[in-house]
């Protein structure tokens, strides 16, 4: 029975790795080999696709652009969500429940609905094609998510902690930054992880709000697929490289995921 139990995750992980393997294998093939027919692994192993990406600035700047707005968005989202989540978890105030639900509704707004108005809004205030525009736009769904996750984590911290700090004469902000934030470090890790994840993977808004200077790597890939013919190897190499930041981030929060998920509500 216990031995049988292993097969479920193992099979699932195998199923998950297959398309990733195929993408990697294709990134090491030449265009001729790809279009020439089916080969299970690269016959003429080549690094040309990667060399092209690392030497052509339109390619590697795409990664820099994506990482820039993702990091700005993650920091911004968590920073504004922290005090708000504290307010929701510790106090009642006028319209709190309505506000909480309204925040969540923004997580439910399809990006397709907002694409055109966002373009007009950010053009009007002169932020079109800047990293900050994408970082701000992604706050639409990341801030509500961060508030939600952090509120869950904060509610599991006993309120006696706050009361004790007040009795000891801590001013609010010192208590918040010195005592409370360290107490929910795991929650902040999980919230930051989710913000990073959703900002990194989103493309529709990121593509709509940029043209050249802040163009995300994923949009560069779309252009390659459509205009410069069918360069599947290059596309596969660029795709493989987009997996790396994610894998990197998971590695850092792996303990937070394992422990953290259970602490908060998410």
């Amino acid at each position, binding site marked *: 029975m216990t031995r049988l139990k292993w097969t479920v995750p193992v099979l699932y*992980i195998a199923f998950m790795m297959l398309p990733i*393997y195929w993408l990697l294998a294709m990134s090491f093939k030449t265009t001729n080999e790809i279009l020439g027919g089916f080969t299970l692994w690269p016959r003429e192993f080549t690094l040309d696709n990667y060399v092209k990406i690392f030497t052509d600035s339109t390619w590697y700047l795409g990664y820099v652009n994506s990482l820039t707005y993702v990091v700005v968005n993650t920091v911004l989202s968590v920073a504004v969500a922290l005090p*708000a989540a504290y307010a929701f978890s510790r106090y009642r105030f006028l319209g709190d429940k309505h506000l909480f639900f309204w925040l969540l509704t923004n997580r439910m707004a399809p990006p*397709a*609905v907002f694409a055109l108005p966002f373009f007009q809004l950010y053009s009007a205030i002169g932020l079109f094609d800047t990293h900050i525009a994408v970082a701000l736009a992604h706050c639409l769904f990341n801030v509500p998510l961060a508030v939600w996750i952090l509120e869950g984590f904060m509610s599991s911290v006993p309120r006696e902690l706050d009361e004790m700090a007040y009795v000891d004469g801590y001013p609010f902000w010192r208590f918040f930054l010195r005592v409370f934030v360290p107490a929910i470090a795991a929650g902040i890790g999980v919230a930051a992880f989710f913000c990073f994840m959703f900002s990194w993977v989103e493309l529709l808004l990121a593509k709509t709000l940029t043209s050249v200077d802040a163009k995300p790597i994923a949009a560069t890939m779309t252009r390659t697929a459509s205009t410069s013919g069918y360069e599947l190897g290059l596309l596969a190499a660029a795709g493989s490289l987009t997996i790396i930041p994610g894998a990197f981030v998971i590695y850092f929060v792996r303990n937070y995921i394992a422990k953290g998920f259970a602490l908060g509500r998410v």
Partner: protein
Amino acid sequence: MSAKPLNQRAWWLVLPVLLLVAFNAVIPLMTVVNYSVQETFGDNKFFFEGVKWYSEVVNSPRFHEALKRQLLFTAIILALEVPLGVAIALAMPRRGAWASVCLVLMSMPLLIPWNVVGAMWNIFALPDIGLLGWTLNKLGFDYNYTRQPLAAWATLIAMDVWHWTSLVALLAYAGLSAIPDAYYQAAKIDGASGWAVFRHVQLPKMKHVLTIAVLLRFMDSFMIYTEPVVLTGGGPGNATTLLSIDLVKIALGQFDLGPAAAMSLIYFLIILLLSWVFYRVMTLDQDPA
């Protein structure tokens, strides 16, 4: 637990979030509302049209078709991913190094940009040179997702299961990790069967995280855009044109801003309504505790 104290100054803590989200949500939403009641012939001249676009969208067979496809897609996704995710979470090692390995590997698909997911499955499923498509054709199936609507749907669903089942599994796993060992020992002493343990110990503990999982999967599968566009482009024909794809086709492809805006709002309202039902169920659940 005592009730939370009433403190109106807590508004100051919420203010930054309120301003940031309002800037992003209210202004674009008003733009959409504006478009949805007006007609334009270019030159930035607009004429008030009232509810014309709304009645046009509500009565259009095209919208009905896209909505039906969307509901079918979401229903299939929920029916497959939720049980599968729970099964995987139940079978995962509860702690130790292998648990970390499982968690890290399973999180991988969640962190790949959505258009890369689409591109990856696009080349994975190509009938002549893709691993999946080539294998299926070698096994004697006539499979070509660019031409057969059924194959396109199957590929789309396989892709989404691949992409998002991990989220359900991770959440279910989090719920399971919160169960103290004493519960299992008690169940063992009582001689409870595996099913009884699942039904009376594990399922109740997972109820809350599963509600969140269902809510998230419902919302995200209802909004799905990038992956199917890259994979099938909504084709063959209109077979996989889900709501978002149709919306972008109308708004940016044909520049019919009025109907697109009206459709946006109807679309958003459907998600809001259904999500509100989930939210109510969730908070009702919380109150007695």
